[in-house]
């Protein structure tokens, strides 16, 4: 295993003066490639903020953030967008699919937006991912016609489309029933084992956390365990 990402002395504050809130207070974290890690902690501990910074959607107030050897704290918005597209996948709690597109079109988005069109090769990869997610019969379904579990599996497929090194999942099973949640976690575990994709999964669910090989506990803006 090689180093995937490292954050050092990460600080993130919101607001200024009397209303300033320090969410991350000098957090340190390192991840290796191929890790399947759960991010645990109470609400307000800074899990989501950490995931947002690791996903390059937000810059820290101070501290360093490197991934794959690239210093992401000094990169431009354009460079971060390109980096995010190539190396990071996202799975959100509420699937966040594009509602006016089919399952396949949603999965293809990260590749199509980079290549400027939906290529045959991308379509092949997208269909393969959807089949792997157990959605062979739902490839061309509008996402509005899918169940919650199916939508979340489409979201996982979309996160994997560009073969990213890291997938950040913020409560990916938080909105699913137990059966669907386990199904999604099984798929994540399978992808992690077979493709070596790293996962960092924020969750409150101890069973979900237990299914991950590493548990990272965040409390009061710091990694506590």
């Amino acid at each position: 295993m090689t180093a995937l990402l490292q954050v050092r002395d990460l600080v993130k504050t919101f607001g200024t003066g009397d209303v300033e809130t320090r969410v991350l207070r000098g957090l340190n974290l390192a991840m290796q490639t191929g890790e399947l890690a759960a991010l645990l902690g109470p609400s307000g501990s800074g899990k989501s903020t950490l995931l947002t910074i690791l996903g390059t959607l937000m810059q820290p107030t101070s501290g360093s953030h490197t991934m794959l050897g690239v210093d992401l704290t000094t990169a431009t918005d354009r460079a971060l967008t390109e980096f995010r597209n190539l190396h990071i996948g996202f799975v959100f709690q509420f699937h966040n699919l594009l509602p006016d597109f089919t399952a396949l079109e949603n999965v293809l988005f990260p590749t199509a937006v980079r290549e400027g069109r939906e290529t045959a090769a991308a379509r092949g990869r997208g269909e393969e991912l959807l089949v792997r997610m157990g959605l062979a019969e739902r490839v061309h379904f509008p996402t509005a016609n899918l169940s919650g579990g199916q939508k979340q599996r489409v979201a996982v497929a979309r996160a994997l489309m560009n073969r990213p090194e890291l997938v950040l999942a913020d409560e990916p099973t938080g909105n699913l029933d137990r059966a669907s949640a386990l199904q999604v976690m099984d798929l994540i575990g399978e992808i992690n084992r077979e493709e070596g994709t790293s996962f960092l999964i924020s969750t409150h669910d101890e069973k979900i956390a237990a299914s991950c090989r590493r548990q990272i506990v965040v409390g009061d803006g710091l990694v506590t365990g």
Partner: protein
Amino acid sequence: MIYALKIATRYLTASKAQTALLVFGVAIGVFIFIFMSALIGGLAEFIITTTAGDMDHISIQAEADDPPLLLPPRGTVLLVQQASTRTSAVLKDTAAFMPLIEALPGVIASSQQINGSGFLIRGALTTQVSISGLEPGKESAIINLDGYIVEGAADLATGGMLIGKTLAEDMDLRLGQSVRVQSGLGIEAVLTVTGIYEIGSGPRDSQQAFVGLATARTLFAMPQGVTRVEFKLTNLFDADATTLRIRALTGLDAVSWTEAGAQLLAALQTQAQLGVILEGFAMLTIIIGVASALLLSTYRRRPEIGIMRAMGAARWFVMVVFVSQGALIGLLGGLVGAAAGYGVLLFFPPRESFGPDSTGLPIDITQGAYGLAIVLTTLGAIAASILPARAAARLDPVTAIGQ
């Protein structure tokens, strides 16, 4: 770009009712634009047809020589000369300058004339008339005599004469009858009425006679040259520029119609400006409508914009998605509005029927500015979409997804 266009199209087709309403709104604006263009253009055509249609656009008249002084001047000499209707000054070198002027771009017709005053005498009846000698074959070069003929033909080749209907009635003259014509010089000729016209203008119908140029030469003892040449242009608003070119080319004192018709020119220009203002308002309505609709769409799709950005869509990509929506709405609305405008304008009488006797609105279907309306609408809609598109592109993905 192709993928951004696909997403834009999907957004539009996903909200069919909203898109249809938006396109309908744009189409109404385009329809108004086209209707106003056709109306303003038609009105201008109507005014030109009824007032300026039969006038020359550029004329060159021989300059009368200064009266000779009978006494050698001592000190300042003051002279007063009454303008004479009698023809004396002659343009001699027409053969040299006419081909040059006729070859100028925009010159579509020319007429060499010998004008003067005289009398029509029939028995005890005598009427003073203005006599215009025209080149046979060019009778309708300036005034559309062919179009005004009510009896006979506008043909001066056979040595005949054309008179107005009122003059014919006053003199009790009918087609084929002969009448004695006496010029101001006292030279007489007997001519046959070969055509009777009705222009609708009092003096021309009651005090004007047209004869062949050869006849006019005899009547006014002018074996060479002419007293006036007139030109018509493709576009009468080019008259000033062409006049300057003629002056530079020939050294002759060419006169544009705008010098004598300043009021008409001002009226036409005011009307054209009014048209531009009304068309501008129609375009502004379209721009505001598209901008507000797209701003609303941007707001409604904030979470999706956030997702796109999170998935690696660059800011420019988001901008192109929303600008493409504006362009598509503008293009579609422009096409629908232009088609509707053309369809409605088909029910109005054609421009050929414009004239003093025509009733109803003088709307000219050929001046609908359809292509311009479509292009301006598309450009306007693109311009209108830039602000919402910029707002969309600048959205913070974290905030947008959280909504």
